[in-house]
């Protein structure tokens, strides 16, 4: 009976990791539904990750006294109930509150699931792999559910999946085996685990570029539908799964792939979807190569697996939250500047357009009005203004190209910051593997 139960638990683990970024593609819908600002709805993402990080880091004392399966069941129950609460939320504050509770449940589920899965190297490897694939799958899964059904479907689907973990088999507290069977692994000590967790935090921060920024770029700047953006973002989990084909373990190569993919996102030469897909595939491959062995290194030689898992989960989500905060500030400033530049370049395109005054003057009036109506931080869509002027199709195309190009360029600094985080993890990976 245990293997199927373990498989169900692994699905729940992947889901709790996927939840970090699962609502990203639903954010435009959520802005409309709650009539909220981008800053307001971003708390739907931040609250989950912050609650998960804080709870995971505070968990080890509790885990010493409680049977792991009980903690997993409690976590799954809290997660499932909070998911239903999210789906039923009619107010933004209530959704943020439910997401916070969901994060608390997620931390309980993730930390205690490693000993429940068996605690041997095979179990920790599977847990680490589920965490990497789950995290990569989040945006695509959320985008597909939003487009096919509704943003509430994201949370409705989660409740039964999380409930699968309620069938977690019992493992007595004393029976929780130490991680890593081999003596050299146990000898690595806390310095190696600290280095591994710090590298995990940096890589999780770096992956904010692949999990969040690309999606915002595709939906807000390139005006992709959630389903189309989800299809493009699926290159990330595909890359992560493809990393399993590489027999050798190399977190350093993984970090280089992640940095390379993010740098490639910073220098996209046009709005063809192939560019972000290729870059995301590299990021996915990198996360598949780096995260599982680093997670194992974060467990190696630990006296208690659940405490090691809690610290590892906490470190990853602390890295993610800090990177989210830094990148949001950087991107907001860059976008504000970019939109000002796009306004000037767009005005130049209109003034210089080879169109008769009879077309140009009324069109300019409509464009100026549309620009006034566009909320701060949003990219204007001039399609309705150009509809009655087929003779101005070339101007429409040039105007769109200019705006999309300038906004894409505004993301460059944020992608480069993420690439830098991945590169900074390299020396720590060296320490963790020593």
């Amino acid at each position, binding site marked *: 009976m245990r293997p199927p139960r373990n498989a169900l638990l692994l699905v729940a683990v992947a889901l709790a990791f996927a939840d970090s970024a699962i609502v990203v593609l639903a954010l435009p819908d959520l802005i409309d539904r709650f009539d909220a600002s981008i800053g307001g709805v971003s708390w739907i993402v931040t609250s989950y990750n912050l609650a998960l990080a804080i709870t995971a880091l505070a968990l080890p004392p509790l885990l010493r006294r409680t049977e792991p399966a009980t903690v997993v069941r409690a976590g799954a129950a809290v997660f499932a109930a909070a998911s239903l609460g999210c789906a039923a939320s009619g107010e933004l504050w209530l959704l943020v509150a439910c997401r916070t509770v969901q994060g608390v449940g997620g931390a309980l589920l993730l930390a205690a699931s490693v000993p429940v899965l068996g605690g041997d190297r095979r179990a920790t490897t599977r847990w680490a792999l589920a965490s990497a694939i789950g995290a990569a799958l989040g945006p695509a899964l959320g985008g597909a559910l939003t487009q096919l059904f509704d943003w509430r479907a994201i949370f409705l689907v989660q409740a039964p999946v999380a409930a699968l973990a309620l069938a977690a088999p019992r493992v007595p507290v004393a029976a929780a085996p130490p991680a890593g069977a081999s003596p050299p692994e146990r000898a690595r000590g806390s310095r190696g685990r600290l280095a591994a967790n710090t590298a995990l935090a940096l890589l999780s921060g770096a992956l904010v570029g692949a999990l969040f920024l690309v999606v915002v770029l595709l939906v807000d700047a390139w005006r992709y539908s959630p389903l189309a953006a989800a299809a493009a973002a699926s290159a990330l989990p595909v890359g992560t799964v493809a990393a399993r084909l590489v027999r050798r373990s190399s977190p350093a190569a993984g970090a280089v792939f992640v940095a390379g993919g993010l740098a490639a996102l910073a220098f996209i030469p046009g709005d063809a979807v192939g560019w972000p897909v290729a870059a995301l595939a590299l990021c996915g491959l990198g996360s598949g190569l780096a995260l599982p062995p680093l997670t194992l290194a974060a467990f190696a030689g630990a006296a208690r697996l659940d405490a090691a898992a809690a610290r590892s989960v906490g470190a990853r989500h602390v890295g993610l939250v800090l990177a989210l905060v830094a990148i949001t500030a950087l991107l907001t400033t860059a976008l504000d500047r970019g939109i000002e530049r796009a306004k000037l370049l767009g005005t130049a395109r209109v003034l210089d357009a080879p169109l008769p005054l009879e077309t140009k003057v009324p069109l*300019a009036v409509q464009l100026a009005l549309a620009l*006034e109506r566009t909320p701060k931080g949003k990219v204007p869509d001039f399609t309705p203004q150009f509809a009655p002027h087929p003779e101005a199709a070339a101007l429409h195309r040039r105007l769109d190209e200019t705006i999309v190009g300038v906004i894409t360029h505004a993301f460059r600094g944020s992608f480069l910051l993420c690439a830098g985080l991945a590169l900074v993890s390299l020396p720590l990976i060296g320490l963790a593997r020593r």
Partner: protein
Amino acid sequence: VRLVVVAVVTSLTLLVVELAAGGLHYGAAQPPRPCAERETVGGAGLDPALQRAALRVLDEVGCRLGRSREQLVLDLTQRGIDVVALARRLEGLPSVLRGIVERLLQS
């Protein structure tokens, strides 16, 4: 080590392909500077001539104020001068002017 080399080479290849396709300058165009020599609307006839005159006025006024013609237009809007309303009033002007000139030419 071999896998790290593969990662470096793969990443650099994608980057080089992107840069060769114009990735460095994509979206990096800067708005025109004030007082810079500008290409203007081409073509013969009254309409292009009117546009050239209007753009020249904008350029000269903007240059004195240290602004480009685009900054000037956006400034006027932001400072409460209703450029939209003004432009709306002028919407019929091109056809009126064209009518006057055509009548003059016919006569």
